[in-house]
């Protein structure tokens, strides 16, 4: 049987050797994706609050927001994750790895999202707010009805980038016992001694997920573009 030594046969043999591991990799990828969705939601909430706080005219509101952004942007993400999972229990704040991971990366991304949103808000001409205010709108109504809907168009593309970064950052959570895609790959590799194969598999799964996110964002962008 000549074929047994050919490249096609080699490929088939390789496929058979990893096929059994795929379902567990898909499960791990699904966990990573769920983490990403939760964290993205958190980054938007934190980001919006902090962006508004940073543009506030009150120093007591502005100052903590600036401190937060300064800290997040100036320290390694991994250290922030460690503080939440390993650090907080020392002062008797205990969380599951999932909760700690979501909070840490949520707060981390929130600082970057805040800057993105703030940039979007600042890009709207001052007259837009003024004409709303001059008609008797409260500043909050004007923000929600006039400013944010316009800022969204500017914000969506960089927010997409940030979502992809969040997805990739979830691999940091492998260090706090969350068996997401990266840690799962490591565990399989420890048992099989096949790091090349399985890291490549993990990378491909990450690639598929970031592509899905980018597609969703592209669709959103088209939708908001069409509105005016």
């Amino acid at each position, binding site marked *: 049987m000549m074929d047994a030594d050919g490249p096609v046969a080699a490929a088939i043999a390789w496929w058979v050797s990893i096929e059994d591991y795929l379902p567990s990799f898909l499960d791990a990828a699904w966990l990573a994706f769920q983490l990403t969705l939760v964290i993205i939601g958190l980054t938007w909430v934190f980001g919006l609050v902090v962006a508004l706080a940073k543009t506030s005219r009150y120093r007591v509101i502005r100052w903590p927001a600036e401190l937060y952004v300064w800290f997040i942007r100036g320290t390694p993400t991994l250290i922030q994750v460690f503080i939440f999972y390993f650090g907080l229990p020392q002062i008797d704040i205990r969380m599951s790895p999932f909760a700690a991971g979501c909070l840490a990366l949520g707060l981390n991304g929130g600082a970057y999202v805040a800057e993105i949103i703030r940039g979007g808000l600042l890009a709207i001409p001052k007259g*837009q707010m003024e004409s709303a*205010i*001059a*008609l008797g*709108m409260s500043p*909050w109504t004007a923000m929600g009805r006039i400013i944010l809907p*316009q800022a969204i168009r500017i914000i969506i593309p960089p927010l997409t980038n940030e979502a992809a970064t969040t997805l990739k950052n979830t691999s940091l959570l492998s260090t706090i016992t969350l068996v997401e895609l990266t840690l799962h790959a490591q565990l399989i590799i420890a048992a099989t001694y096949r790091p090349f194969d399985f890291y490549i598999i993990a990378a491909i799964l990450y690639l598929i997920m970031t592509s899905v996110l980018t597609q969703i964002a592209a669709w959103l962008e088209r939708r908001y573009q069409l509105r005016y």
Partner: protein
Amino acid sequence: MSAMAGGGDPLLRVRDLRKSFGVHEVLADISLDVARGEVIAIIGASGSGKSTLLRCLNLLERPSGGEIFYAGEPVDWRRPPGFFGDPAVQRLRTRIGMVFQSYNLWPHMTVLENVIEAPMRVKGLPRREAEERATYLLGRIGLAAKRDQHPFTLSGGQQQRVAIVRALAMEPEAMLFDEVTSALDPELVGEVLDLMASLAVDGMTMLVVTHEMDFAREVSTRTIFIDAGRIAEQGPSVEVLERPVNERTRRFLDRVLHRRGGVDREAAVDDGR
């Protein structure tokens, strides 16, 4: 809209209004009574404080001193605006409309949405009623057919007239106009001034910052000349514009009128010699 100037309390009373930005004093001791139905033109050089005066009247800018009374009620500008804005100030703004040089229409909304937004969100008008009113007003300026288009598809003159209608939809008692034709191509100025003139005829109380001296002369009842943050001269428009008493008014008018109808005036001067 039918109340004409006459006896009774003035609609707007301003006493010793001051405004500084830091150490830079922009308005000093402005006192002014505006009767219902009065149309006042405010003229003056760039930087003299005309916009700041208008913006103090609806508290887009917080004064630094003085008193403002609107319809007999004192306007409390000293209270710091709270976290959620100041309801009393917001109510005042629903009664005083303002139109800006740069239209400031909202680009993400259609013309109709621009006009119904504040009546619905601020006054709580049901959509049907708000749309009826908006359609009527847009019809009045001949733009009913554009109601579902976005502002940027309109000419500057059309946009500015929509901005005026947007303010009118709140049924204000008075209107502030801040150089509303200055950003327009010359051939579009007329349609906006015509609309303003028709409002004046209807009895709207108007404060109009303008460089259009013809409009000031023909439509406004009174002209105020502001110089370096003070009212340097005021009186019936024809008087102020044609026989200014103040030396600075005279020099300002010379400069403005010279620039506009330059050729005619120069010819007239030559003939005189």
